């Protein structure tokens, strides 16, 4: 059963993303989403969703081959490869070395704390255990008494799927899921730019959010895959990855909307429809989950437009200060955010700005800024508890955009 899960996830992921990193991220996210749908809609806990994924993956692969053949026949250009300011093997060797060190630290700390960090135990891993232990008592699993019961079900369902496939609540599954997404995201960035991948690995939050098994890292990697696929013009696949991001965490829906806005801004309405077609299934399932199962969101329950707009002007400088503090936060972003900020300041005016990743970087930063300006929670409390994690959700995408700015051969 576990072999079928892995083969179905990798097969479907490869069909959609066509790279090892993308296959890991999208494939296992698809596996979690499909299992969540079969369990919550039909109450099934068997391998049905894996079989379905294999079939859908084969169809998607066949459709992709047909589209690629059409592109070749029409002479349309394929996805552009990144160029690097460094000799390729230097950057490859440095990134591989960093990857080995970070992977070793991840394994060691996951052995120390196999249950993950505080939020992971209280939210996603707790819900995964509830889904595994009481798969047919959804009122208990998504009880309003449990924190963030309204969070989308992809990650808990993926972990529970692993346990059902193994017929045992084997503790390392949680850490393995975290490792798969972390490694997959790093490989996606590595394929695009060795330097950007090195900076991601050197970001302390990358390792922190990986070992503590938070959903923020999974969301960040799904957004990165969605952005790279959008940049390559594979809009249906990008929409699917963005829809899966929305199924991972509440902020994912807003970030997927920001990516949709960047798509329509740079590529036009026709490509937006392609993006939306890819996102349709996960978003439809998310809507069903929110309307039928999820308790009310804690922020939505206390949000007031009048109070939000009244407080907003006073909050702008405080949120701006908190964001700037994160740029130089050594424990959060090491020296990587400051280095990226220097690249943006030095190169932004001299590089093409109409690219999708750069537009998305601007839109997503503005979106996260607005989340804090309009939050109904006490601002300092909300910032202290989450600003580093929420900024990390878009950090791999910001690194991808940064890699476009330092490419020496990019056209001016």
């Amino acid at each position, binding site marked *: 059963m576990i072999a079928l899960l892995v083969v179905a996830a990798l097969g479907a992921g490869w069909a959609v993303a066509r790279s090892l990193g993308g296959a890991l991220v999208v494939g296992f996210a698809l596996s979690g989403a499909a299992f969540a749908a079969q369990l919550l809609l039909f109450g099934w806990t068997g391998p049905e969703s894996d079989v379905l994924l294999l079939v859908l993956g084969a169809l998607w692969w066949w459709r992709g081959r047909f589209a690629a053949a059409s592109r070749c026949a029409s002479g349309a250009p394929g996805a552009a490869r990144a160029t690097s300011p460094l000799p390729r093997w230097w950057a490859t060797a440095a990134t591989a070395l*960093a990857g080995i060190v970070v992977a070793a630290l991840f394994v060691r700390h996951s052995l120390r704390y196999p249950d993950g960090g505080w939020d992971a135990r*209280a939210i996603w891993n*707790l819900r995964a255990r509830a889904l595994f*232990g009481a798969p047919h008592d959804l009122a208990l699993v998504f009880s309003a008494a449990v*924190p963030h019961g309204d969070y989308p079900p992809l990650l808990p369902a993926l972990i529970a799927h692993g346990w059902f496939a193994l017929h045992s609540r084997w503790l390392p599954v949680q850490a393995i899921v975290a490792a798969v997404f972390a490694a997959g995201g790093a490989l996606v960035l590595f394929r695009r730019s060795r330097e950007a991948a090195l*900076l991601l690995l050197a970001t302390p939050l990358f390792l922190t959010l990986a*070992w503590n098994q938070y959903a923020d890292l999974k969301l960040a990697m799904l957004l990165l895959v969605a952005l790279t696929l959008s940049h390559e013009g594979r809009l249906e696949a990008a929409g699917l990855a963005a829809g899966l991001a929305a199924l991972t965490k509440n902020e994912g829906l807003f970030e997927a909307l920001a990516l949709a806005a960047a798509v329509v801004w740079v590529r036009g309405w026709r490509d937006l429809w392609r993006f939306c077609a890819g996102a349709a299934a996960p978003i439809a399932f998310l809507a069903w989950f929110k309307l039928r199962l999820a308790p009310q969101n804690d922020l939505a329950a206390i949000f007031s437009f009048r109070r939000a707009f009244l407080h907003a002007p006073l909050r702008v400088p405080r949120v701006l200060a908190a964001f700037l503090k994160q740029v130089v936060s050594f424990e959060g972003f090491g020296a990587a955010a400051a280095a990226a900020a220097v690249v943006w300041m030095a190169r932004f005016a001299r590089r093409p700005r109409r690219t999708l990743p750069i537009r998305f970087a601007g839109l997503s930063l503005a979106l996260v800024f607005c989340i804090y300006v309009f939050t109904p929670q006490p601002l300092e409390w909300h910032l202290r508890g989450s600003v580093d994690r929420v900024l990390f959700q878009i950090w791999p995408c910001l690194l991808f955009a940064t890699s476009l700015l330092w490419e020496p051969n990019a056209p001016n």
Partner: protein
Amino acid sequence: MREPGERSTAWFWVLVAVASAGILRDVSVYFWKPGALRTLRIDDRFAPLLTQLPAGERLGFVTDAPGDLAGSHYFDVLYALAPRAVDPGPDARLIVADLQDAAALPKVCARFGLRVVARGGAGAALLEHE
């Protein structure tokens, strides 16, 4: 004007310096500071209680931890005993205690009129009303 090769070398060393800062910080926090490797499993504390818990019954929860720490202990109990429903407070028939100070168990029992049914590890116990 610097040659492209020189510029590449400078780029490389800047990048290595930036990356090294983050990686060395990780090595310090996750390798040096925590000391010898010791696995901490939350389930280990509660495993002896599991055989005593009737399926489907709502449980109570008490702790001696103050403020936010009490919440941390509560979620550890929810996590370890999932999918069982656990309500904060001593109102249920069976109550799970997760104490910061294991020696405070008699005091907690006396305060709520409870007695010990089973003991777990490091401050965990299953209690019932006297």
